[in-house]
């Protein structure tokens, strides 16, 4: 019998703009002791689905059935639901810092779960908490049990969350993007922990994630969601190797890891639909590369295949395999021997004053040497806090440095007069990470992109307007949207606006500070393609910062690996991936999950076709 059997679940959330159909007619079942993966991009409804089953979305209208050990969770009275929550079904959330109460010790928070469900003395509870903490790998648990969440690192906090979820030995644990907020190396440890706990305690796990590579390593079954629909469902090794649905295929293809470095990605075009309207045909039809007229006019049927894969699609067989990939790297020897930027022995030290005046020094950059050649893309990778963004900001002149020198176009930045510095600003531009924070929400897109012209007195009036329109066209935006506010654009479009602004003054160097890490994988591929095309056309030089190795490998000619304020390895991109010289580089490489290469589904037969009502 399945631990959780969900049938025809629907979730509707009323908002000011209308009713959001967050989950539409989703069914699945989770076998005991397995790891069930739910994958999808943001807005696909994967988190809402589980939270509404648990009764944690009070505003939502939930209908359908969710049978847990034979009892329907939908419509269950709160008092009974409460006994299941934590006791029988536990949850682990994305951000362990905000998910733990800042004012209670971790011990108290874990023990609380015990007290809610069992009659247990405080001393017994404490003993069990300590036992559990040591099980999830917290060093010295007896001492750390009385610490507050802020005294732990991100990975340790997530271990605490897992301890809290497992302390009552629940039958089911729902982990909602448990590793998204963590560094790559820590991610691997957390997934390993979850998996080993599953084996040890026999707990069933539902793992929600956007990372297909991660699922392919650990999941038994997967469900792919898109715009609230279950697009594809079945055994993980079948689906992630040979998807039956064009959306799954598209997702796998959007990941740069599936390509030869430097090749052009084949992203899913367009962007996710609004959840307010119900389309007549398939929700994915407008973005689908395989779409036929039928797709847009009638809702797709459910195709059930003999290898257990179920796909919500008009296609009767898997989409035509992986497209032949343009394998020839097209950037051969494009770097010209001209230094755009040269950093020598750069140090940055902050004085940190503790709250009670205890002062210490914090070394962020410890002697960086780095040269960027004209026309190349130099990647800068490392985990959070390694100083890669600080280095970028220092080169862009946004952060003062302690010692060392930065030369731009052969001139020492430290020796420039303020007016020369202002002129130099034109040569170095930045594309920021956050597509929401990097555009002023109160200004129109036209004036945001036109700002470089205004500030440097380059063009004004009609000329400025014309040049802004040209820029908008260059980055794939409709120039008629000149007068709109940033809020009216999607994340990917906003990132295009940021790129247009950076391009405006023809800079010698563009610093891309994690430009795609806030975007969904299909949108990410679009932006990466744009960056490549612009480089080829305009001969741009990029300093590209990312924590995502597959992205860096795809885009960069050379890669610098940073750790704790130092560059530990700097090499040609392929050389670095094939023969990493540094231990830390190896750890990084091993930690990243690479989705399996797609292969055509050999011998898959269509068993039956069911009509699905919406």
């Amino acid at each position, binding site marked *: 019998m399945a631990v959780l059997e969900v049938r025809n679940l629907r979730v509707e959330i*009323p*908002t*000011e703009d209308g*009713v959001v159909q967050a989950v539409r007619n989703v069914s699945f079942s989770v076998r005991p002791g397995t790891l069930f993966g739910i994958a999808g991009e943001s807005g696909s409804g994967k988190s809402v689905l589980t939270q509404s089953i648990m009764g944690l979305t009070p*505003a939502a*209208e939930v209908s359908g059935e969710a049978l847990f050990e034979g009892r329907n969770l939908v419509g269950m009275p709160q008092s009974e639901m409460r006994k299941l929550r934590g006791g029988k079904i536990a949850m682990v959330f994305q951000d362990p810092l905000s998910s733990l109460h800042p004012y209670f010790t971790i011990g108290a928070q874990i023990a609380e779960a015990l007290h809610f469900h069992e009659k247990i003395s405080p001393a017994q509870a404490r003993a069990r908490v300590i036992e559990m903490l040591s099980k999830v790998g917290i060093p010295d648990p007896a001492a750390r049990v009385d610490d507050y969440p802020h005294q732990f690192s991100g990975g340790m906090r997530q271990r605490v969350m897992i301890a809290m979820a497992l302390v009552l030995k629940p039958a089911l644990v729902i982990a909602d993007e448990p590793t998204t907020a963590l560094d790559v190396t820590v991610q691997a440890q957390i997934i390993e922990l979850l998996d080993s706990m599953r084996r040890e305690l026999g707990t069933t796990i539902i793992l929600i994630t956007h990372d297909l590579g991660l699922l392919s390593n650990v999941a038994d079954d997967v469900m792919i969601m898109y715009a609230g629909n279950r697009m594809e469902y079945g055994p993980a090794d079948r689906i992630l190797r040979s998807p039956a649905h064009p959306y799954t295929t598209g997702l796998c293809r959007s990941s740069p890891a599936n390509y030869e470095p430097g090749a052009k990605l084949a*992203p899913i*075009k*367009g*962007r996710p639909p609004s959840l307010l309207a119900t389309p007549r045909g398939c929700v994915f039809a*407008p973005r689908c590369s395989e779409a036929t007229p039928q797709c847009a006019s009638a809702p797709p049927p459910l195709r059930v295949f003999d290898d257990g894969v179920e796909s919500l699609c008009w296609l009767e067989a898997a989409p035509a395999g992986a497209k032949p990939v343009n394998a020839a790297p097209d950037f051969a020897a494009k770097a010209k021997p001209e230094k755009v930027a040269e950093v020598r022995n750069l140090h940055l030290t902050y004085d940190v004053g503790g709250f009670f005046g205890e002062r210490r020094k914090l070394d962020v950059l410890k002697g960086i040497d780095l040269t960027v050649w004209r026309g190349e893309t130099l990647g800068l990778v490392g985990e959070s806090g390694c100083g890669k963004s600080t280095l970028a*900001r220092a080169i*862009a*002149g*946004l952060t003062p440095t302690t010692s060392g020198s930065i030369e731009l176009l052969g001139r020492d930045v430290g020796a420039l007069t303020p007016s020369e*510095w*202002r002129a130099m*600003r*034109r040569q*170095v*531009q*930045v594309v*920021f*990470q*956050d597509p929401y*924070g*990097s*555009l*002023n*929400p*109160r*200004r129109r897109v036209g004036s945001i992109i036109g*700002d*470089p012209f205004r*500030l*440097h007195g380059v063009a004004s009036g009609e000329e400025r307007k014309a040049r802004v329109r040209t820029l908008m*066209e*260059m*980055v*794939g*935006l*409709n120039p008629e*949207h000149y007068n*709109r*506010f940033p*809020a*009216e*654009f*999607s994340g*990917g*479009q906003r990132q*295009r606006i*940021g790129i247009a*602004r950076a391009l405006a003054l023809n800079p010698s160097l563009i610093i891309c500070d994690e430009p795609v890490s806030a975007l969904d994988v299909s949108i990410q591929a*679009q932006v990466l*393609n*744009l960056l490549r*095309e612009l480089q080829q*056309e305009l001969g741009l030089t990029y300093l590209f910062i990312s924590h995502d190795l597959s992205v860096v490998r795809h885009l960069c000619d050379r890669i610098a690996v940073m750790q704790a304020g130092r560059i530990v390895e700097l090499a040609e991109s392929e050389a670095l991936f094939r023969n990493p010289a540094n231990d830390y580089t190896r750890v990084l490489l091993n930690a990243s999950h690479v989705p399996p290469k797609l292969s055509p589904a050999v011998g898959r037969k269509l068993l039956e076709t069911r009509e699905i009502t919406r």
Partner: protein
Amino acid sequence: MSETAVEETDVVQRGALDLTLRRLRRDRASMMALGIIVCVILLAVLAPWIATLTGHSPIEQFRETGMTPAGIPVGPNAEFWLGTDQLGRDVLVRLAYGARISLLVGVLASLAASLVAIVVGLTAGYFGGLVDIILSRVIDLVMSVPFLLCALALVSALGPSILLSVAVIVFFSWAPMARVIRGQVISLSRQEFVQASRALGAGPLSIMVVDILPNLAVPIIVYTTMQIPSSIVFEATLSFLGMGIVPPTPSWGGMLADASSNSLYLIAWWMVFVPGLALLMTTLAFNILGDGLRDALDPKSSRMARNLKRQKKAASKP
């Protein structure tokens, strides 16, 4: 140039101002508040006309008709619509002239206080460092001072006047708003769009005016609106304690002080209820409008949740 060009957004969005006005117009409480404020403004504007209509000047004492033989003020009647005070003056006419003082002081002091707060908050928040430390200390200082006692001391030393009232109110009101703006500026300065402007070579003034100030419009509008009732009450309190507007110039606080002296209002209730309710309704109206403005300007606030709940209930009904 890119084949992956993004398709259009079909939704035509309205401008921010238009949206705000629409939301505000849908809010019945705010509209009523606006109505009350318009009435008070009319009362103030039409004060001389009311005086002509009734034939009573605000400071004229009608000892014959306006008082009983025992020297007690008369209640509302055909000649004195809202009764008379302890000197036989017409309460209605005094109320109308008092509205002038309240509105004048309230609006003037609030605008001035906002201006000071914006300048101080922006400077402290943007420049940080020593400037911030000094200005923050000044804000703390002003906020940890027994303001009414100091105001009394100030007025008693310099002698009461309307200008001094405004100055005193401004001096003791700007600090909380400056603190809020400083905080907002600090968090805005860390935003990437400010970094982007700096990377483009924008100077401090350009960043403050072009990038930061427009993002402070909501708190500034809301705080200034909310400051008006506070200023009106502050002025009324000063006048009530005899330290504000100099009699016989009518002011609402002064009228209440007249009522309070010798507990006269216990036998002449209109002397407290007329100016008291006028004061209450005015401050209430400004406070409701401030709340409504905040909800309309910043739809993320509580109103959203309220609408959600309401729709949900309506939807669940068969």
